[in-house]
């Protein structure tokens, strides 16, 4: 690996940053050249994107569909009681 090229450690940092903002031109170029040549760094990039997609999709879809998690009934009771107290105080 030539000394002027970005190494894997540097590229992983840039890959992460590129998920959230546009990199400077020289960073973008350096990262792209490296990714073309390095199987592991491009795998790293794919896996970060996968992680992002999975975390979002899962948390967005599960509130409606995942019935296996329910609020404990005593907590619901506690909340209702606190609401009644709140209304008594404020009305």
């Amino acid at each position, binding site marked *: *690996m030539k000394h002027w090229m970005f*190494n*894997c*450690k*540097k590229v*992983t*940092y840039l890959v*992460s*940053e590129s*998920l*959230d*903002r546009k990199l400077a031109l020289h960073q973008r170029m350096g990262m792209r050249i490296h990714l073309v040549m390095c199987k*592991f*760094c491009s*795998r*790293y990039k794919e*896996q*970060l994107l*996968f*992680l*992002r*997609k*999975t*975390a*979002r*999709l*899962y*948390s967005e*879809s*599960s*509130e*409606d569909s*995942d*019935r*296996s*998690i*329910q*609020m*404990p009934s005593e*907590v*619901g009771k*506690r*909340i*209702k009681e*606190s*609401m*009644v107290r*709140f*209304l008594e105080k*404020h009305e």
Partner: protein
Amino acid sequence: MNTQQSISKHSNENPEKWVDLYGDYLYRYALYRVYETTVAEDLVQETFLAALGSIKNFQYRSSIKTWLTGILKHKIIDHFRKKTKEQPMDDVKPHIDKLNDLFTKNGQWKIKPANWNADPQKLYGHKEFMKVLHKCLAELPSRQASAFTLREIVGENTKEICKILDVSATNIWVLLHRARMFLRRCLEINWFTNSNDRKST
């Protein structure tokens, strides 16, 4: 719209009913973002009380569920803000060491990323995956975990996250980078390796 309005009116007369109608949904919403059951319970309670307090501001433009979810989202972000204030700057050292182990002195991979062979559709349905992700997040210093959660699960932009976590613009890239690097590795060890084992047996 008519149905929504009548639901709203009905619920206005009897706000405790909200708990039956939306409690489980809000609880799940909170739990997927803050991970701790007691915190989620408190946030849901605060949400209902805040909703009662501002019921006059409720406009029929949105459904009660959307309105409550909006309040809860604010409460969740407040939770991360408070959590950050309560804790001093994280000691990131042990994690830096761990991350440095992944690379050689020349900055090349020492422990190379494995081929996950993951089928996203299968994975999305897997509650276990989220459990493992939560477990891995719990091992991170709290600012890194909060940064990742706010970015990838709550969906905040990095500018807002800087304000919430009280970190500089440069710091946020470092926090997210370290969190992602660690989580990727942690999932590889705890999820992908194990699920491959399951497949082959």
